[in-house]
């Protein structure tokens, strides 16, 4: 009976502390400088270049991730085979890798001195220090976020839906497209949002593997880093934009999942 007196307030305090800690840096970005200063700092061709580059490289990376990752996650989720757990761990590995390690790994694999360096060179493909390398770095760090969510979403599907689809005359591919994906959509979209956020925020691997050059490889995080030393207000401005974009993505996800009609049926 005494617990009823102090436990609820304790919960409230914990939440208050967590909330303040998490929102403070974000609020500070918008409050540290005036809004006029923030906006004018964005009126800078380099900033616009960085934003454009971030947006389209992250989009391309996400397209690759979704197109390749969705069927891959489906296979993992719907088949039981011996190596399954190992494969899942391997796919999740980049999640826990520090971005710098990811950068090193990409260089070791695809850099000029890397495993495939000579082969790429022979084929005339330049990877490092190009926009392609940005896309590769973003794909590498963001893919596990999507794959994990997608695999969980497909695993949570009621198998009888997939079976029913087959008995109703639909092959595996049709079942995948017409039943599995629509039913798993909320989870897939959540994974997409997480992966996109991660891709937009990627810094360390990009810097090491792709370098930093305006218009080609300098994404918003890299631009923020460059401005931080010389023009803090500009850094704040770009950060504010990134926060706004990330918030927009998150909200779109929330709306999309609420609108989705797929609900778990209970008896």
């Amino acid at each position: 009976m005494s617990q009823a007196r102090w436990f609820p307030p304790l919960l409230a305090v914990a939440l208050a502390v967590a909330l303040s800690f998490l929102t403070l840096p974000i609020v500070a970005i918008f409050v540290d400088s005036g809004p006029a200063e923030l906006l004018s700092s964005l009126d800078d061709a380099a900033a616009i270049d960085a934003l454009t580059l971030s947006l389209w490289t992250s989009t391309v990376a996400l397209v690759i991730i979704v197109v390749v990752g969705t069927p891959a996650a489906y296979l993992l989720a719907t088949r039981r085979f011996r190596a399954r757990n190992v494969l899942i761990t391997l796919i999740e590995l980049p999640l826990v890798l520090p971005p710098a390690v990811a950068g090193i790994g990409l260089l070791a694999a695809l850099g000029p001195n890397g495993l495939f360096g000579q082969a790429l060179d022979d084929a005339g493909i330049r990877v490092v220090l190009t926009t392609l390398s940005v896309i590769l770095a973003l794909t590498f760090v963001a893919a596990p976020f999507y794959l994990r969510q997608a695999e969980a979403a497909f695993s949570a599907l009621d198998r009888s839906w997939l079976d029913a689809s087959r008995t109703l005359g639909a092959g595996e591919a049709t079942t995948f497209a017409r039943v599995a994906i629509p039913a798993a959509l909320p989870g897939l979209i959540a994974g997409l949002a997480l992966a996109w956020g991660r891709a937009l925020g990627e810094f360390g691997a990009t810097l090491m593997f792709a370098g930093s050059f305006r218009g080609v490889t300098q994404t918003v995080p890299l631009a923020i880093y460059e401005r931080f030393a010389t023009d803090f207000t500009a850094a704040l401005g770009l950060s504010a934009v990134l926060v706004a974009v990330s918030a927009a993505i998150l909200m779109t996800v929330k709306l999309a999942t609420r609108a989705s009609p797929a609900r778990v049926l209970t008896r």
Partner: protein
Amino acid sequence: MSLHVEAVADLGDLHLDVAFDIPARQCLALAGPSGAGKSSLLRVAAGLLQPTSGRVTSGDDVWLDTARNINRNPEERRCGYVFQDYALFPHQRSWQNVAYALRDRPRAVRQREARGWLARFGLEHLADARPATLSGGERQRVALARALARRPDVLLLDEPLSALDTRTRASAQRELADVLRVTEVPAIVVTHDFAEAALLGDEVAVIDEGRVVQQGSASQLAARPATAFVADFTGAVVLHGTATPAPDGTTIVTLAGGHQIRSTDRAAGPVAATVFPWEITIEAAGPATSQSAQNHLKARVQFITTIGGRVRLGLAGTENLIAEVTTTAIADLDLQPGSHVTATWKATATRLVPHA
């Protein structure tokens, strides 16, 4: 266009070994306890489960023949499958669910035909509803409509009514029985309820631990259960004991509790003696009006349950029995829980089944 299913499979602890032939227009009710392999058999027929060896044919179409390496995909077999939880696609409306079965029809007519199917089940007003908003009974009918819309060669129904509450179930049972009567294709209905099996199936097959224990009409199974399990399943009272043939041609069974009863069946050794609850009459306790052809058991009433016009009595004595009597009998004897009675039934009503 009959259906032939035979399969041998090892499913975890269960070894499945069954074979059936179901002629067109006939329905086989597969009954048995959970885990007996009933659903697995349906899945083999539909191609959702691969047996170690087996053969499935629909008329002249060979769907599966492990000996000849033939194995058609589920989508290539024309099965109408109703799943236990109906498996309606949650992201589609009712008519879309049914239309999914009509994908080989021209696009322009699909919606109309789907709605038509729903109308046949009285669901046209729910055609635009999503499964989550439907009641259990409504979902069951949509699932049935969807399976039938496929114009299948075979109907496979996996416990199609067990998800329903008792009230809905009664009407759904009658409805399903009507559908099965009209349908021209062979059908298999899986159930764990004997009364349902009796209602829906032209024949009943009892499966236990992966094997068919007995197959025949419902009344055959009830009248002559092949094993104690079948007897119990059909609702009989089962008493275990040892049988000794008596010189007058009857058999004396010494029950586990020590009591002796008589049966007109011939048997020896360990047996299960079965009698149906409605064959047991109740008399007030006291010196039994003994007739040699009757079995008597003193017992105490444990519970009295009225279902419709019938009353089920739970009796506890050296053996436990269930008796089914009329309400009049209860009133006449002023029976209450705790009353002492004598349960009586005929030796001819006592069937003996060898007990393994």
